[in-house]
Every structure is written in structure tokens, then in C-alpha cells.
């Protein structure tokens, strides 16, 4: 694996929030085609990590690399243009816009307008339901449908890396399951996925590899199997009492 270039890489990233040291020497790599999950409890630094990937937080030291390019102090739109995009927690669609407009927002920075129709088709293949709802205001969709549009919107940007923020947060079990299925599907279609999740067992069930973040530090990392069988992991994050 070492000879492969990671699409997303953190090299000794430290971030500060005022005087507070949040991320502490975080190193992580996400390779092309993988599903990697970042696990951690509340306030472990997960959100900050995502913000650092997207350029909403600039590391005080260390570098964030996208496709091998150092992007530490680049703007969000610069990074989005280079293939990073996120499905936010709680979907957060533009509720007053139609589904179509929502999907179009995903292509905001793209210049290859001629391929848009194809991409739209691809989304419809993935989520046939979305096609039926195209002219409807996003706010009127059900929770499951909204989730599809949110993912579709992200995919319209043709991301190299798709960030998923807490895909299981506050969702019914059936939707959680659906969400993770979608992630697998997308991944199979060739997109690298970086999942940030509190629900460790769920995330590890689909991921190739995982990192565990605790108070800003990576405390564990490894393949999904290794992590699932790690006793420390089982107790702290999988909620097993013994």
C-alpha cells in the first residue's frame, strides 16, 4: 500500500482554537478506492478534522494534502474544485429549492457542463426515486428521500473523496442501513469515501480501514477487522459492557 499515493493525507496536523489545542499531530491517509472511517466520541476532534479537510479550519502546523498537493491554506472552493465534497450531518438540503436545483448546486464549480446530463443519469440509476421528485421542493421530501438527494448532490460534484459526516446520527435503523448501503454502492462505483462516525460498529462493518480519534489524537488505527476485534475498542466504542 505504501507505494500508492493517498488521495487525502494529514501530515502531523495540529489545529488550535484560540489557545485550545484541538487536533494533536494527526496523521492519516486515505487511498484511492477505499472506505476509511474516523471514529470518535463527542468532542473528540472529528468535526475539526472534517473542517481541516475542507479548509474551514487551517492547521497551525502540519499539512493537509489532496492528491498529493499541499492544500493546507487553500480555500474551501479550491478544495471542492479538486475533488473533495461532503454529505453533511442531518442532510441539510436547500429546502426551498427544487430537487433539481439542489443537484445543480452540487455542480457549482464544474465547468464541464456537457457531462452534467450523464451525471444526472448516474444519480437516477443510483436513486430512481429522485427522478420522480425532480421538480419538487426539497423540503417536502421524506427523511429517506432527502438523504438520497444529499448524497446525490455531493456526487454531482464528481468527487474523488466523499466525506460523510455522521451518516447514522439521529436516523431510524432502516435509514442508517440504507445510508451505509449507499456508501458501499458509491464506493463500488469508484469513489473514495471517508466516513466520520460515532457509531463504530456500523461504520466498521463497511469500512476497509479505520482511525480512532480521542481528544484530538489518533489512538488506534488499522483495518476494520483488527479494530473490531481490538478489546480496547470493543469496550470503549462498541458499547460492550464486559
Amino acid at each position, binding site marked *: 500500500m505504501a507505494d500508492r499515493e493517498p488521495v487525502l493525507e494529514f501530515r502531523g496536523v495540529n489545529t488550535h482554537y484560540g489557545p485550545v489545542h484541538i487536533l494533536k499531530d494527526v496523521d492519516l491517509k486515505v487511498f484511492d478506492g477505499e472506505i476509511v472511517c474516523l471514529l470518535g466520541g463527542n468532542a473528540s476532534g472529528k468535526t475539526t478534522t472534517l473542517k481541516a479537510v*475542507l479548509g*474551514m479550519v487551517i492547521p497551525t502546523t502540519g499539512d493537509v494534502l489532496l492528491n498529493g498537493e499541499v492544500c493546507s491554506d487553500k*480555500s*474551501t*472552493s479550491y478544495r*471542492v*474544485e479538486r475533488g473533495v*465534497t*461532503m454529505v*453533511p450531518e442531518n442532510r*441539510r438540503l*436547500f*429546502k*426551498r*429549492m427544487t430537487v433539481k*436545483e439542489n443537484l*445543480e*448546486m*452540487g455542480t*457549482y*464549480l464544474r465547468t464541464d457542463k456537457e457531462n452534467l446530463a450523464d451525471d444526472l443519469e448516474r444519480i437516477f440509476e443510483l436513486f430512481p426515486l429522485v427522478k420522480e421528485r425532480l421538480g419538487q421542493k426539497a423540503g417536502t421530501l421524506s427523511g429517506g428521500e432527502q438523504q438520497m438527494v444529499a448524497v446525490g*448532490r455531493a456526487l454531482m*460534484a464528481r468527487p474523488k473523496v466523499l466525506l460523510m459526516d455522521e451518516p447514522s446520527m439521529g436516523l431510524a435503523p432502516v435509514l442508517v442501513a440504507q445510508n451505509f448501503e449507499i456508501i458501499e454502492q458509491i464506493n463500488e462505483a469508484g469513489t473514495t469515501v471517508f466516513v466520520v462516525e460515532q457509531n463504530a460498529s456500523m461504520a466498521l462493518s463497511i469500512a476497509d480501514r479505520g482511525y480512532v480519534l480521542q481528544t484530538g489524537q489518533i489512538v488506534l488505527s488499522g483495518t476494520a477487522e483488527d479494530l473490531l476485534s481490538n478489546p480496547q475498542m470493543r469496550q470503549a466504542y462498541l458499547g460492550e459492557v464486559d
Partner: protein
Amino acid sequence: MKLLKLPQQRKRRFGFVDSFLWAVRIGALVFVVVGIFGIPGVAGGPEGSLFKTLSGEGVSGEAWRDLFISGLAQGSMYGMIALGYSLVYGVLGFINFAHGEVFMSGALVSFFAADAFATAGIWESQPVLALGFTILVAMATSTIVAVLTERIAYRRLRGSPRLIPLITSIGMSFFIRYTFRGLFGDSFKTYPAAPGVLEGRATIFGVEILKTQLTVIVVTAVSMVVLYQFVARTRMGRAMRAIAEDREIAALMGVNVDRVISLTFAVGGAMAGIAGVLWALLFRQVHFLTGFLPGIKGFTAAVVGGIGNMAGAYVGGLAIGLVESVGPLLVLDGWGIPAVSQLKDVVAFSALVLVLIYRPTGLLGERLSVEERG
């Protein structure tokens, strides 16, 4: 039936507030109806303005027409100003009280262009060119003032509690107003009279309209349509709407939030600039206080129409313009109230209160930014 249902109004047991509001609603309705039609058969009571017109002693039919049209013209300009409030409110969620001054700045600075044209004789010989250029000057000035305002003051305040940008905008309003007073003096700047082609009346669909008023109505309507298309159809327009809904997610889509917010201010400013020249065309006098009252009325219009809603701003503007033009004579005069024109702001603000009592989110409904939804 459905129409009668008050949106988002909770159905409650009939409490004090409900009885009060119903009393206001019914009272207002009775007041308006009696003011217009009078109480037939009751001698000595209110006569009713319409009745007076029919009996030939009140306001003549032509006068009603004039009132209506001048209200429309006035309202069009309120609408243009309201748009600036509405756009900013939609995107940033606060009342930009300095918007009235943005309007004033365009009107005031473009005076110097108009004056120069008039002195050079171009105002008469090439009215379209001169007027167009004057409007450009006004738009440029207002746009610059609006964008600078955002850059200097509001950008640093994003995300602070709502009272802070509000007070900042009041401060900004004072600052701009008195800076302009300092720079250009406090005298009234008298615009050259509308060029010859715009003198007198034109007949549209059999209705005689002063050409200046017609110009105002047409120019605003066209501007509004163009702007609406811009926001509805273009990529930038979509970005604006996206930011209005959820700034963070819009940024995530690659939208440059700062630039689009600047653009929003610019658009609002440009519209205010156009309104400034139109205002000067109609009323011909501008000075540093010109922005104050139209600013407040513009904001009122934005709320009446449904704040954050572009079409609402325009509709609200027309409504306020009409109400304050026609309202006093139509409703109050019928009651035999003296000096009704003095009360036109009372009528306008009462209309605002009534609209909000009947429809708490304005005529066309509000479109709030993400902060609002809380």
C-alpha cells in the same frame, strides 16, 4: 375555507390576545368599509368617500386615477428599495438600516452628473443617453457604498447576535448620512426638470398618466423582472439563494460566500441607485436626509410583502405606495377627519400592522435565512 386558515397560527382557546386581535380586525374592517361607503341612511354620520365622489362633492374620478398612479409610482420606488432590505435580510438575516442611505447616496451623487448634462444641454438633446448615464452613476455610487458598507462593517459581524448588526447598521446609516452632508453640504440639490420628452401625459390603455410617473413604473418593473430572472436563472442567483438558506453548505458546494454576499449588497445597491434617480426624476429635490423616510418605508414594504421574498418586496412596495396615496382620502376622509393627508404615514403603518395581524408572514410569505429557522 382553506384560505381563511391562518398559516402557522396556533389554534388556541379564545384568550385575551385573540379577542383583542379579532376586535382589531373587525374594527379595522368596519372602519375601512364605513370610511369608503359610509352608513347609508344615517344622516350626520360618516359620509363615505365613495359616496361623496358619486355625489360630486368629494374627490373626482380623475383625481382618484391620479392618486392611484402616483401611489403606484411611489410604491414602485419603495419596492426597489425594499428589495435591498429583503435581499440582505434573506442572506444575512438582519435589517440593514443603512440601506436608505445607499439609496440617498446614489440620488445625491448622480445629481452632479444630471446637473452637468443639463448645463451642457445634453439633458434635453439626448435625454435617453443623459438619463441612462445618470442612472449608471447612481447605480455605481450606491453599489460602491453598499459593498463598502458590507466589507467594512457587516462582514466582521456574521454570526453575532442579531442586535449587533442592527445597531451597526443604524450607526452606519448615521455615518453615511452625515458624511454625505459633510461632503456635499446640506442644501437641497435641485435636479433639472425631466427632459421635454418626459413632460406632460401619455395615454396608456385609455388612461392618462404623467410621463415621468410612467417612466418610473416601467423602469422599476423592467428592473425587477431582470433581477428576478437573474436570481432565478443564473448560477450566481442560485448561489445567492443557496447562501440564504444555508451558508455553510453553500460554501461546501464551492460557493465563495464572501463574494456572493458582496454581490447581494451590490445588487441591492444598484436597485437603490436606480430608485434614487427615479426619485429625483419625480421629485427633483434631493439632499442628505432624502434616504431616511423612503428607507423606513422600504423596509416596511419588505415586511408587508414578506421579508426575504423578492416578489414580496415589490408587491409590498406597491401596496405601501398605494395605501399611503389613496388610503387617507379613501378611508379617513369619509369619516370627516380633518387634514387627512397628514395622516398618510399613520395609514401606511396601520396597514402594516393589519397585514401582519391578518398574515403574520406578510402578503407573499417570508423567506428566511438559516439563522431564522433556529
